[in-house]
C-alpha cells in the first residue's frame, strides 16, 4: 500500500513524514470549507433552537433552554400545561408523514428497482436502449417532475383521470394532489417514478459482480429460478442493496422539494423538513423551526447509527 516502501529504508521515515505533512496541507482547504458550510451552521442551528431568536432580528435572541422543545407552565388553577414542539400535534403529524413516506417509498423502490435490475441483467436485444430510458426519470430535476406529474394528475384536465375513466377503473374524476386521502399516494407515485432508476442501477451494479458460472451451475443442477434468486442472488447483492437502501432512506427522510411543489399546504403530506422551514422562514418562528430541524437531525443520526450497527453495513470506507 505504502509507495514509500520502494525507496531504501534510510530515507523512508523522512519521506513518509514529508508525505504526511503534505497531506495535511492538501486536506486543509476541504476541512476549512466543510467547517464553514456544515459544522458551524449546524452548531448555530442547534444553538438557535435553544433561543427565542426571530427572523427579523437574528441577534436579539435570548437563551430559553428547552422551551422550544417542551415547556411546562403551571396555571394559577394548579394545572400544568405543556407547550413546545414535542407536544405540537402538527409536528407529530409531520413526523408520522415523513416516516410513512420514507418507509413505503424505500420498500417499493427497492423492490421495483430490483425487478428492473434483474431485467437489465438479462441479455436481450435493446438492453442499452432500456437502460438509457430508465435514466430519464433520474435526470429530470425534481421540481420539473413534480410539475409534470401535477399536470398529469390534474383533476379536470389530467391524463391520469382520463385514462382511468376510459379503462373504467374510476367513475368520477379524482383530485389526486388536493384530496387529503390521495395526496400522499400522489407523492409516493412521483417519488417512486423518479427514484426507482437510481435503485435499479445500484442493484444492477451489485448483480453484475456475481460471476455467471454460479447461475450456470445452478441451471445444470435444475434449481428453480425463484429459488436461485432467494438463495443465491439476493444474499450476494445484499451488501450493495443495504448501502443503496440507506442512501435512499436518508434522502426520503429529508424530502422537501417534491412535496413543496406537488402538494403545497396539504396536512396529509407535510414532512419534517417542510414544517420546519415553514416555521423558520414563513411564520417567523425562526427558533421554533430550528428546534424542529434539530430534532430531524437527531432522528436521522440515530437512524444511521442503528442501521449501521444492526445491519453491519460496510459503507466502503476503508476496506483495504
Amino acid at each position, binding site marked *: 500500500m505504502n509507495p514509500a516502501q520502494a525507496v531504501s529504508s534510510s530515507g523512508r521515515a523522512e519521506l513518509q513524514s514529508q508525505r504526511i505533512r503534505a497531506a*495535511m496541507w492538501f486536506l486543509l482547504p476541504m476541512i476549512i470549507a466543510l467547517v*464553514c458550510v456544515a459544522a458551524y451552521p449546524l452548531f448555530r442551528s442547534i444553538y438557535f433552537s435553544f433561543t427565542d431568536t426571530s427572523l427579523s432580528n437574528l441577534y436579539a435572541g435570548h437563551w430559553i433552554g428547552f422551551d422550544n422543545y417542551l415547556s411546562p407552565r403551571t396555571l394559577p388553577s394548579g394545572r400544568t400545561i405543556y407547550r413546545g414542539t414535542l407536544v405540537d400535534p402538527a409536528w407529530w403529524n409531520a413526523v408520522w408523514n415523513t416516516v410513512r413516506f420514507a418507509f413505503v417509498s424505500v420498500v417499493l423502490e427497492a423492490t421495483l428497482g430490483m425487478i428492473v435490475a434483474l431485467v437489465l441483467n438479462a441479455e436481450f436485444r435493446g438492453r442499452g436502449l432500456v437502460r438509457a430510458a430508465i435514466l430519464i426519470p433520474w435526470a429530470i430535476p425534481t421540481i420539473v417532475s413534480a410539475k*409534470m406529474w401535477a399536470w398529469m394528475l390534474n383533476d379536470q384536465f389530467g391524463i391520469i383521470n382520463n385514462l382511468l375513466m376510459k379503462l373504467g377503473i374510476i367513475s368520477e374524476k379524482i383530485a389526486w394532489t388536493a384530496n387529503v386521502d390521495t395526496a400522499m399516494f400522489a407523492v409516493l407515485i412521483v417519488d417512486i417514478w423518479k427514484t426507482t432508476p437510481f435503485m435499479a*442501477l445500484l442493484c444492477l451494479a451489485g448483480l453484475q459482480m456475481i460471476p455467471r458460472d454460479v447461475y450456470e451451475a445452478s441451471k445444470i443442477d435444475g434449481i428453480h429460478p425463484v429459488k436461485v434468486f432467494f438463495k443465491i442472488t439476493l444474499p450476494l447483492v445484499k451488501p450493495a442493496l443495504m448501502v443503496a437502501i440507506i442512501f435512499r432512506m436518508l434522502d426520503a427522510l429529508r424530502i422537501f422539494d417534491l412535496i*413543496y411543489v406537488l402538494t403545497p399546504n396539504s396536512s396529509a403530506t407535510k414532512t419534517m423538513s417542510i414544517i420546519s422551514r415553514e416555521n423558520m*422562514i414563513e411564520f417567523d418562528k425562526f427558533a421554533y423551526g430550528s428546534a424542529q430541524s434539530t430534532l430531524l437531525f437527531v432522528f436521522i443520526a440515530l437512524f444511521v447509527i442503528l442501521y449501521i450497527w444492526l445491519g453491519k453495513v460496510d459503507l466502503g470506507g476503508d476496506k483495504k
Partner: protein
Amino acid sequence: MKILKKLAFYLLVLVIVVLSVFPFYYAIVTSFKTGTSLFEVDYWPKSFSLVNYYAVFQQGEFPRNILNSVFIASMTVFLALLMAVTASYALARVNFRGRSLMLMTILAVSMFPQIAVLSGLFEMIRFIGIYNTPWALILSYTIFTLPFTVWVLTTFMRDLPIEIEEAAIVDGATPWQIITKVFLPLMWPALVTTGLLAFIGAWNEFLFALTFTSSNETRTVPVAISLLSGATQYETPWGIIMAASVLVTVPIIILVLIFQRKIVAGLTAGGVKG
C-alpha cells in the same frame, strides 16, 4: 411455453420503457399546445405551436434564471473539484492517523439533512452580506458537492496501481508534483463524471435556492419554474410551465445519455441521488 415466457419478458421491458419515458413525452406534447386544446387530453401530438416557448422567454426573468443556474452550478462544481483533487489524494494515497475517521465524517456530511443547517447558513449568509446573490448558493451548495466529489475521487484514486506513484517518488517528485503530473492526467475521466454529477445536483437544488434568494433576477431555474404563475392566481399556465420544463431538462438528458456509462459507474461509487 418458451415463447410465452419471452413474450412476458418483453412485455415487462415495454412497460418499464413506457413508464419511464411517458411523463416527459407528455410534457413535450403539452408544451406544443395552446389555447383550449391544452385542456383536451391527447395521447398523440396533434398541434405544433411554439407560442409557449416564446412566452417562456418573455415571462419574468427566465433567460436570466437559466444564466444564474449555469453560473452557480459551474462555479460550485469548479470549486468543489479544486478542493477535492488534493484532498482525495491525501485520503487515498497517504497513510495517516485518523484517515478513516475523516472519511466517515465526510460521508456523514453528505448525508446531512439540509434543513438542519438552514438557519445557521441563513445567519451566515446574512452576516457576510451575500443574501440574494449567486454567492449565497455557491457557498451553500458546497455542503453537498464537496463531500460527494471527495468521496468519489477518493475511491477512484485508491484503485490506481502503486507503481505509477513509485516511479515518481524514486525520481524525487514532491507530493504536489505527483498530483499535478502523475494523477491529474489519469483522472480526467473521473473528474468529468464527478463534475457532471455534482453539476446536476447543484442544477436541481431547491431548498437553499428558495430560501436564500428573494427576487426574480437572482432565482435559479427550479425556483423560477415552481413560481411560474398565470395572469390570475387561479389560472396555472400549464403550457408555459411545460415549455420551461422541457427547456431545462433536455440539455441535462442529453448530457446524461452521452455520459451514460460513466455516470452509472460514478453513481455506484458515490451512491447519490440527483
